[in-house]
């Protein structure tokens, strides 16, 4: 339809899209402004602008600790996920393709069951006794794995289907490679895109996770979101700087995922 008549998008549509953009932008913009304001209370615009809140934030050891702990937990969860999901995917798609249908139902569970509900069981099962890990980062890593699972499973499955796993493996076998070698040398490099995209997306999601972090661990291993919650009663400007820093960090990651996605297309 290259020669077809594409009317310049009417004014109505452009206005709607810009309005949508503005609605989505507003909370972000408000917070950004607040984080740069010297003071702002009961007036429509702030009194003045400054960077001091950011300087205060990034000099605060508790914040840096929370930031680092968030990173650790997220990266730990992602590493665990990769270690568990990659072999799973290979085995399912190569040896037991019928299991894919089962898997597709299983990965609905993290979506269908709200984290609050799981938290009830988790607190009881791992609160005490031999498997006690409530209050430690370990339980978070385990839970975050279940959160990342649907994203990673779907993205890499699509990738596997696109590269036609069977044919690749057959070709590798005919050329003399064992299954293990073929998996590592032939299949894995081709999964890079799907893997990277899902890792970035999962990271963004995990970094903003609050329910498990607050209910299962709380202040005993303070992640960034929990820290934000605990700081509720301190200066709104400080909190704004915190929120914006968090968001900016996640923004960079999502942007990287988008870039990778576009390269793939």
């Amino acid at each position, binding site marked *: 339809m290259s*020669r*077809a*008549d594409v*009317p310049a998008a009417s004014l109505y549509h452009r206005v709607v899209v810009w309005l949508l953009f503005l609605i989505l932008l507003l909370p972000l913009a408000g917070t950004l402004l607040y984080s740069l304001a010297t003071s702002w209370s009961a007036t429509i615009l702030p009194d003045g602008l400054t960077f001091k809140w950011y300087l205060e934030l990034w000099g605060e050891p508790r914040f840096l600790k929370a930031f680092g702990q968030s990173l650790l937990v997220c990266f730990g969860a992602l590493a665990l996920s990769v270690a568990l999901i990659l072999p799973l995917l290979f085995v399912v798609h190569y040896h037991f393709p019928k299991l894919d249908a089962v898997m597709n139902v299983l990965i609905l569970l993290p979506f269908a069951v709200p984290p609050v509900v799981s938290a009830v069981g988790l607190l009881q099962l791992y609160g005490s006794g031999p498997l006690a890990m409530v209050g430690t980062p370990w339980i978070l890593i385990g839970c975050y794995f279940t959160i990342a699972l649907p994203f990673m499973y779907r993205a890499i499955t699509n990738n596997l289907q696109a590269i036609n796993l069977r044919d690749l493996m057959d070709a590798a076998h005919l050329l003399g490679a064992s299954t293990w070698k073929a998996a590592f040398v032939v299949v894995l490099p081709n999964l890079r895109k799907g893997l990277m995209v899902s890792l970035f997306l999962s990271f963004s999601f995990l970094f903003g996770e609050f329910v498990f972090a607050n209910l299962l661990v709380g202040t005993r291993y303070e992640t960034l979101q929990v820290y934000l919650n605990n700081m509720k009663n301190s200066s709104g400007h400080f909190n704004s700087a915190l929120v914006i820093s968090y968001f900016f960090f996640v923004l960079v990651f999502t942007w990287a995922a988008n870039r990778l996605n576009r390269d793939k297309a």
Partner: protein
Amino acid sequence: MSFLSIQNLHKSYGGTAIFSDINAEIEQGEFVTLLGPSGCGKSTLLRCIAGLTEVNGGKILLGGEDLVPLSPQKRGIGMVFQSYALFPNMTAAQNVAFGLRMQKVGKEESAARVQEALAMVELGDFAGRYPHQLSGGQCQRVALARSLVTRPRLLLLDEPLSALDARIRKHLREQIRSIQQELGLTTIFVTHDQEEALVMSDRIFLMNAGRIVQSGDAETLYTAPVDAFAAGFIGNYNLLDAPTASRLLGRPVNGQVAIRPEAIVLGQGPISAIIRSHSLLGNIIRYRVDAGGVELLVDVLNRSADDLHANGHPISLDIAANAVREVA
């Protein structure tokens, strides 16, 4: 005054002209084909007549009324799309009835007309089927019934057979033509397939790069192409430049010439040649011969295996004077 009169029509998109100053007259009941390669503007012209694409200037007079200011809803034109465009949430019968529903035709009359239209395309028993339950050919027939049931003044078909396989295409070709003749419906058919155009049309408009290069009936277009493009597009003409042609025919020639492959006689005549290769096209054998350095295609009816000339075999050719057509 013709039934459909296109006057000085032009259309550009983003600064480039798709076509400019198109003029055409089409009589009532005529089956006209817009034929041409991809990108020549034929589909755009059709869409302009339908009102789906805006024109930048000119008039389209249907029965004396200018269509250009009218919306597609009000033009009284039926159209069949390459992709069938059947509404997936409706059965075949509901699809066909849609236009009648928009015209607020009563339930009983509508049901009767729908039944009649489906019977006309031989799908009377399929009224309750959904599009996803129909084959491509069946979908296209439903689309045809849908566009005919509203009794349009003009029927447009935009490469309706291109998405179908060869056997269905042939069958549908005949069906469309016979229905059109039975109804006496003025029809414009767009295709890039010259065989389709030659078989189905009363008249053909050959288009290239936004211009109507030649218009006329099938016989005229085939035997008397007006220029090198026309000769190259319809049939498998041998196109030779003046010096080559002079050398071959042994007489002076003014410009480029086109010679039809079936007009060259093998086995007798003054020209010496060698058979280079041949292809069996069913009822025709197409030889590639080398006549003193000039490569020619020669088509011969495949009467019997004994007549087959072997590759590398020398052969003589005769080209009658009236088989040589000078083209611009």
